[in-house]
C-alpha cells in the first residue's frame, strides 16, 4: 500500500516551515556531503539529521517504516561490496574460503552506506512532513514554478493510490478469463507486461478525462491565477536554509580538521 500523507505531528516547528524552504534546505544540506569519500562527514550529517527529527515532529519508528527501501538498499550495498569488491587491502578480518573480508573493504562499504543515508534522509524527512498540496502551492507561489506543471502533477499524484487497487482487479479479472502464469517464469513475465499494459491504458484514459475536466474549469484559460491558499516565505524559512547550508559546511570542516577528508575529485 502506498501512503502519501505526511506523518509529522502538526505544529512541529520545522515541519510547518515553507515547503520550498524545506526542500532547498534538504538539497543544500545533502549536496556538499557528496564532495568527500570519508565516513566521518556523513556520520556527522546523520547525527544532525536524527537530532533534528523531533523538530520535524517525526517519530523515528515511523520514519524507518517510510524509509524501508533505503534501509534495504543500504544492506544490499554493504553485502555486495564486502563480498565482491576488488580492493582487498587492510587487515584480514574474516577468511572463510572464497569469502575474504578485510578492514579496507569494510571501511569503504560502510562509508558508501553512510553516504547513501546521509544524502537521502533529508529528502525522506521533507516529503514525510510536507502535504503535497502545500508543496505544489509553495512551488508556484515562492519558487515561481509554472502552475500548469505543479498543479497538474499534484492532480496526477492523487490518482497514484488507485493504481495499486487497479492492478489487483486486473489480475483477478484475468484469472477469471483462464489466464494465469502458474510457475512458468516466461509466462509470468508476459502476464506482467500485459497487465501493466492494461493498467497503463486505463491510467492514460483517466488522466485524459481529468485533463479535460480541469480545462473545462478554466485551467487552460491563460489568465493569471489567484491563490486561495497563501504560502509565505518568512525569515524563519531563510534561517532554515542558511542553517542547513552552514551545518553541512561545518561537517566538511570537521572532516578536514581531523585529516580524513578524501575529495571525490582529485
Amino acid at each position, binding site marked *: 500500500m502506498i501512503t502519501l500523507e505526511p506523518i509529522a505531528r502538526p505544529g512541529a516547528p520545522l515541519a510547518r516551515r515553507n515547503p520550498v524552504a524545506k526542500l532547498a534546505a534538504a538539497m543544500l544540506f545533502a549536496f556538499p556531503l557528496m564532495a568527500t569519500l570519508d565516513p566521518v562527514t556523513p556520520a556527522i550529517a546523520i547525527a544532525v539529521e536524527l537530532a533534528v527529527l523531533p523538530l520535524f515532529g517525526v517519530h523515528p519508528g515511523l520514519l524507518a517504516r517510510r524509509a524501508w527501501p533505503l534501509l534495504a538498499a543500504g544492506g544490499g550495498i554493504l553485502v555486495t561490496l564486502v563480498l565482491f569488491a576488488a580492493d582487498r587491502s587492510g587487515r584480514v578480518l574474516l577468511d572463510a574460503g572464497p569469502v575474504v573480508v578485510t578492514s579496507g573493504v569494510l571501511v569503504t562499504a560502510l562509508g558508501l552506506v553512510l553516504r547513501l543515508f546521509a544524502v537521502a534522509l533529508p529528502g525522506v524527512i521533507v516529503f514525510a512532513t510536507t*502535504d*503535497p*498540496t502545500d508543496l505544489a502551492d509553495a512551488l508556484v507561489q515562492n519558487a515561481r514554478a509554472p502552475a500548469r506543471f505543479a*498543479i497538474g502533477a*499534484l*492532480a496526477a499524484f*492523487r*490518482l497514484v*493510490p*488507485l493504481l495499486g487497487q*487497479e492492478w489487483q*482487479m*486486473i489480475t*483477478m*479479472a*484475468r*484469472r*477469471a*478469463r*483462464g*489466464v*494465469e502464469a*502458474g510457475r512458468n517464469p516466461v509466462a509470468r513475465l508476459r502476464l506482467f507486461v*500485459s497487465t501493466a499494459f*492494461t493498467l497503463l*491504458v*486505463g491510467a492514460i484514459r*483517466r*488522466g485524459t*478525462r*481529468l485533463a*479535460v*475536466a*480541469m*480545462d*473545462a*474549469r*478554466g*485551467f487552460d*484559460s491563460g*489568465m*493569471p*491565477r*489567484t*491563490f*486561495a*491558499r*497563501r504560502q509565505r516565505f518568512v525569515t524563519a524559512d531563510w534561517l532554515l536554509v542558511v542553517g542547513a547550508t552552514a551545518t553541512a559546511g561545518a561537517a566538511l570542516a570537521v572532516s578536514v580538521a581531523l585529516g580524513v577528508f578524501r575529495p571525490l575529485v582529485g
Partner: protein
Amino acid sequence: MGEGVWVRGFGWRHAGRRGWAVRGVELRVERGEKVLLLGASGAGKSTLLAALAGLLPEDSGEHEGSIEIDGRPVDEARDRVGIVFQDPQSQLVMARSGDDVAFGLENRGVPAGQIWPRVDEALHRVGFPYHRDRSTAALSGGEQQRLALAGVLALRPGLLLLDEPTANLDPAGAALIRAALTRAVDADTTLILVEHRVAEALPLVDRVVVLEPGGGVRADGPPEAVFAAHGDALAAEGVWVPGREIPPRRAAGPAGEVLLTAEQLGQPPRLAATDLTVRAGEALAVLGPNGVGKSTLALLLGGLLRPGTGRLAASPELAGTDSRTAPHRWRAPVLTRRIGSVFQNPEHQFVTGTVFDELALGPRRTGASESAVHDRVTELLSRLRLDRLAAANPYTLSGGEARRLSVATALATAPRLLICDEPTFGQDRRTWRELVDLLADLRDAGHGLVTITHDADFVAALADRTLALAPPDTGPARP
C-alpha cells in the same frame, strides 16, 4: 445576437474518422431553459456538449457551422459555461474538498478574498454535508459528484451542461445528485442535460431535443409531445422512455441442485460473514447499500479471492473431482470452465487485440479444437450483435459493446455458474433487454446465475431469489 445558446448548422468530425460525430444541428435555447438532450448511442450527444463547453480543440478534428453563447463565439464564451461529466473520480483535482471548489475560481483569477465565501456558498447550494477540509478520497461516489457540481456552480455559469452525471452512481448517489440539482440550479441558469434514464431526468427539464443519428434534430418540444410522437422509435433505439414496461423473465421450473455453499464466508473489514447457497437454474440477485461488500462477495464466489473467514464449498455437480478443494485454489483454465465472472469494468478483462481473439481465448485455453473454437465464437458474435466488430480492438468499443463483449467472453467457456457484478450499469434500454434475455436463457438452460446489482428493474425482470447484505454491526464506521 442576444442571450442563450444558438447552434447553427453545427457539425464535428474527429480527426481520422470517416463519419461525422454530429452534423447539421440547428438549435436555439433561451436563457433559463432546461433541456434534455436525447438520441440513440452514437447520435453525438456528448460531442455536442463538448462543443458547447468549448472543449473541442481546432486541431483535433474538422468543424462546420457555428455555436454562439450569449452572443459570443463559443471559444470566447468559455467562462460562461460549466460542465459536469460522468466519472466523479476523474473530475476531482485536489485532495481537500474546499480546495477542489476553489480550483476553478483560482483559474479564473477571482480575487483571493472572494474565493472562500464563494466556495462555502457553492458547497451549501449543493447540500455538501461536510467541512471543506474533508478529504475528497473519503467521499462516496454521490458525494464526489456533488462536489464536482459545486466546483462548477462556484464559477456561476450561465449555461450548465451535464453529461450523464448519474450514470456511474448507485441509486442513492443518483438521488443525491438530482436533489442537489433541483436545489442549486436557479431560474436564470440555462441547463442542457444528457441522460438515458428519462423518467429520472424529467422533473429537471421543460423541453426535450432528440438528435438524429445520421445528423440533424429529429424532434424538439415539450416532453409529453415529443414522447407521444416519437416514444416507440426512441425506446427501440435504447432510450429509457417512461411508461414502457418490460415483461419479466421468471424461471420456468424450480431451482436445480446446489452448486456452491458458503458458510460464514467473509473478508473483514470489507465483507461480514455471510451464509448462502447458489443453485443451478436459478437467478440469485445480491442487493445491499454501497460499501457492504457485494463486489467482494462476487470475487469470493468467483474463486478469485481467498476467503478471509468461513469457507466456500463447491458441490461435486460443479467441481467434479475437485469438490474437496475450494474454488480459489483451482487452476485458472479449470476455474473458467466452471465459474465465469463478469467484472464491473469490462476493460479489466480484455486480454487480446481483437474482439474475435477475445472470445476465442477461453475456449483455446481450455483445449478446444480450432474449428470448435471458430464455431463457438461465430455463434456468440451474432448472438450479441458483435459480428461486424470481430476485427475491432476491444478497447475501442462503446460502453454497451464492451459490456456485451465481456459477458460473451465469460459465456464462451460455457461455465456452469456465472457471476456478474453490476452487468446493467449505465446501459441503454436496448443493451439492457438483450442482457436480461441472454441471462434468462442461460438460467433456463440450467446454469446458475448470481448477479450483484443496484438495478431494481433488473431484479424485477429476472431475479428468482434475492439476498440483501446488511452493513455489519461491529464493522468500521463508514466515514
